[in-house]
């Protein structure tokens, strides 16, 4: 199955892409997508404890099983608002 991954903030800079499509085995959990980037990019791994994930625009825990066509968002700590 294919899922679309969206990367934001510094994660986008680390991976060098804002968006990519991943081919995964059916039944793959969200945490496997995180591990994929953490294995590939040491800087990503360094941040991984502070990263939140979303599936189809809703926060989701790592144990969530992905489905064909899901949109996965990988989100570094947010910094909107004042300042």
């Amino acid at each position: 199955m294919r899922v679309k991954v969206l990367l934001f903030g510094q994660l986008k800079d680390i991976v060098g892409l804002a968006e990519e499509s991943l081919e995964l085995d059916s039944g793959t959990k969200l945490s496997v997508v995180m591990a994929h980037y953490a294995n590939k990019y040491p800087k990503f791994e360094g941040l991984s404890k502070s990263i939140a994930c979303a599936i189809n625009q809703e926060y989701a825990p790592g144990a969530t099983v992905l489905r064909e066509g899901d949109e996965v968002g990988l989100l570094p700590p947010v910094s909107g608002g004042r300042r």
Partner: protein
Amino acid sequence: MTRGSAEVKTLRSEHCAIVREPIDLRDIKEDLQHPEDGAAILFEGVVRNNTRGRRTLYLDYEAYESMALNEMEKLAQAALEHFKVRDVCLVHRLGRLEIGETSVVIGVGSAHRAAAFEACRWLIDSLKKTVPIWKKEYFENGAVWADGEPFPQEITRTE
């Protein structure tokens, strides 16, 4: 899907908006006005000229736009449920913002001021923790993504 594309100007939900133009405070105030209210609060988040003493040139805000609007609307609904306020509104601006410009506005209309202040404070504090918006700070000798606030534990849980 809406990413930071230039052609997407404004996203709106019942109580919230994400905009790329300067935020019009008068519009927000007019929308918020109601004869039953004894208190109207408009909080403005403004671009500051420094971070820990380092001179900031400008900021660039980006968002996971569709999700950010959903999360802002959830906060608006929660505030209406938990505080004795009549109406709230949340507006966030994206893109390049200069020093002194307004990046976010929280508006609250309520019969009494105590609830309005509480709701306003809760809304801006919550927005900064859960709404997927990020800012890059540009300095004279480089740019960095601002350190965000850690996500609440229930959001980053792995199980």
